[in-house]
């Protein structure tokens, strides 16, 4: 077992790659009551066209299938996984993003039994045509809940605007129609292909003895048989540089309009470290521009074209990346003009070193704060792990960011790739 000590955070991470390909990471937290286990697969809503394990032809499954599978995973041959966790005094949950699906438990007792149960319920699929049918009504209500949520509509709409082909523009849960067309066979094919241990990672943080827990995980995996892993072949997505549409307005029954301006970031960086530094640099840039301490933010605030709901974010995963800026605003056209003008002239903005160093300190503090919460630690770890980064390194990488790095990411602000989505009254 590999043991890695992180000086700044004063944390020790334990790692082992098992014979079946499963990557296991353990982070003991002394003094904590809580233990949190997260079992993730590199399978998200964008993975709809691929070659199934053991076959040689590309197939396309329905949108929302990763999320559907997440719902059905809790069915076990001899009962419901959530109930079994409850019997151990633990709560369990799961979530699907565009690039991964994760299953988790949170407990304050029976830690090792919970780890085994987490492995066991995810490593078995027990579905029937009937149980698949029954889930459709529940997922349908989940989709409708998001349909009525204007924040989600504007967030997602602003991503849809950017992509002509990329499935990241499809709702994670799919639509009521795609859900209704989803079959037991589709779920089984996806399961077989993407839930191989070689495509997965287990992270446990909290009140554990790493040696005991690791041994238990190894013994558990040695008892199970898996086919030899094969590299997973996903369809290469051919996404044009240009955005799909520059402007969409949608009317909803809301009291205040919402706007998000989004920018498609086309440049594909080669290494995980380059990608991470791009993200950290953009986050620092957003803080310099739009945190409460910034001049620009306060100017816009005083003009009344933004309020405290305004935010700017950068998202990147796998082969796509985009910037989003916006918030709740009835004077959305004025705000749109202001943001477009800002994008056009961003190259003229200069920062002083004092402001830059201060924002860096703030970001360092934020990353240290994460290590007070097992959930936050696990979610951060899983999110960066599949991007090739061990999240405990981030706090030291922030220190290496220079002001030049901030200026260099300004190139992504390009009106040619900018779009706007408005939810209006």
């Amino acid at each position, binding site marked *: 077992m590999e043991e890695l000590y992180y000086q700044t955070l004063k944390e020790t991470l334990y790692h082992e790659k098992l014979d079946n390909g499963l990557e296991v990471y353990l982070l003991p937290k002394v003094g904590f009551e809580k233990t949190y286990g997260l079992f993730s697969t590199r399978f998200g809503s964008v993975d709809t066209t691929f070659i199934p394990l053991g076959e040689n032809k590309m197939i396309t499954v329905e949108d929302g299938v990763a999320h559907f599978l997440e719902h059905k995973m809790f069915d076990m041959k001899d009962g419901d996984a959530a109930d079994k966790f409850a019997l151990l005094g633990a709560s369990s949950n799961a979530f699907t993003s565009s690039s991964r699906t994760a299953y988790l438990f949170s407990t304050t007792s029976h830690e090792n039994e919970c780890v085994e149960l987490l492995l066991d319920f995810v490593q078995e699929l027990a579905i029937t045509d009937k149980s698949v049918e029954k889930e*459709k009504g529940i997922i349908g209500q989940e989709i409708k809940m998001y349909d009525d949520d204007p924040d989600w509509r504007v967030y997602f709409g602003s991503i849809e605007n950017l992509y002509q082909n990329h499935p990241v523009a499809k709702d994670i849960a799919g639509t009521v129609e795609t859900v209704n067309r989803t079959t037991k066979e589709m779920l089984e094919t996806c399961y077989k292909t993407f839930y191989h241990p070689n495509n997965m990672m287990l992270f446990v943080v909290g009140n554990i003895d790493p040696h005991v827990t690791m041994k238990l995980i190894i013994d558990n995996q040695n008892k199970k048989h898996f086919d030899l892993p094969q590299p997973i072949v996903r369809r290469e997505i051919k996404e044009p540089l240009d955005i799909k549409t520059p402007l969409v307005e949608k009317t909803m*029954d809301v009291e205040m309009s919402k706007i998000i301006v989004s920018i498609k970031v086309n440049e594909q960086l080669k290494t995980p470290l380059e990608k991470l530094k791009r993200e950290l640099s953009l986050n620092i840039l957003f803080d310099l521009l739009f945190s409460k301490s910034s001049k620009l933010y306060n100017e816009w605030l005083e003009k009344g074209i933004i309020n405290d709901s305004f935010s700017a974010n950068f998202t990147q995963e796998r082969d796509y990346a985009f910037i989003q800026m916006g918030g709740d605003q009835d004077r959305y056209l004025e705000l749109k003009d202001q943001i477009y003008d800002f994008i056009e002239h961003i190259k003229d903005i200069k920062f002083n070193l004092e402001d830059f160093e201060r924002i860096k300190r703030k*970001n360092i503090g934020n990353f240290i704060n994460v290590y007070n919460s097992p959930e936050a630690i696990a979610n951060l770890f899983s999110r960066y792990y599949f991007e090739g980064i061990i999240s405990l390194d981030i706090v030291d990488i922030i220190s290496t960011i220079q002001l030049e790095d901030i200026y260099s990411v300004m190139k992504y602000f390009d009106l040619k790739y900018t779009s706007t989505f408005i939810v209006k009254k």
Partner: protein
Amino acid sequence: MEKNYMMKGYQLHLIPTTKFKNITISLKLQNKLDLKTVTKRTLLSFMLVTGTQKYPSTQEFSKFLENLYGMKYGTSVTSKGKSHIINMNSICINQEYLPYQEDLLTQQIQMLNDVLNHPNAMNHLFNEQMFEIKKRELKERLIVQKDDKFSYSLEKLFEYMGKDQPLGISTSGYLEELDAITNEELFAYFKQCLMEDHKHLYVVGDIDDSIVSLFEQYLTLPEQNHTYDTSYHYQVYRNDIQEIIEEQDITQSKLNIGYQIDSEFMSHNHYATTVFNALFGGFSQSKLFKVVREQHSLCYYISSSYDAFNGIVIVNAGIERKDYQKTRELIDEQLKLIQQGKFSDEELDIIKGMLKNALTRSKDESLSMISLLYNRDITGKEETDDEYLSKLMAVTKEEIMAIAGTMKLDTIFLLTGRSE
């Protein structure tokens, strides 16, 4: 464990623990929940983040916080039955984790003192520009809240059910009262709060008794001896249940049901009610989730919750309009089953395990620890976490059946799509 000190103008509670890499300080200001002051109190909570004499704008103040490794500082308002609370929370990295030694803790304490004793104000007025910005911010917040249909429909349930009761008073205030509040009036109210609000201050982190002298030195508040009521037993007489249906352009209907129950935070039934609620709809192992969602596929979310400070139970669910009656029947049926004792020992054990897990987990979250302690400190309830847990675990089947028997349907609020 917790240590208490009587300071000048506030009670100081220290919760030393080495597990966190930061220090949480939470000051809570308590006064009566009152229709006449609730909007002012919320606006005041917004003003308490606009800086100090030394840092006289949000911009300057934010720079100061960022320099302290991004110290988090924010305010919020909550209701506890008949009381309204302004929370001032600050979380700062423990200086032990800094590359260079800096005294962050003293600055964290001084900051609170500056916000309250040296505010961003002059001549009995808050900084005028900040006042206007925050007034607009609250206005927009109150408007945009209505767009979250889940919380909007819940607020509506409280409004109808709680008419002429503390339950019916909105925690975050009223849009129509906001415009009339003047800077002068708000500043005067701020001074009044400093004199009259009951104040508790909590510190969680790697600290020892020596911190008491820092508080003596850096934070003093006006002495006061007001006390305020908190939990009460909601009781309204009705001939019929109230049923309100509102239509909007939405696709999913939001069902909210309020019940009276013979229990509140201080009553001996509190423990049985907590376990009853968990069995009824508090978790995804509860009856409502198992039956309405898992068996009948009628919804994605359904749950019940027990508001101990108002002494009520509520149920909410997102459903199709056509399933409204059916959902109500299923909910009624589950309640009846509990009243008749139709639940197994295993079900009860699971539910108690979930409650135990939830309670133990809060020991890893500084703000949850504070919130549990505060509930007891403002009600004068003498009880440790362990005592609370063992009382919950000792609740019997008969006690659950008995308390379930006192559930009385009071008000239904359904937010639904427009009928064709």
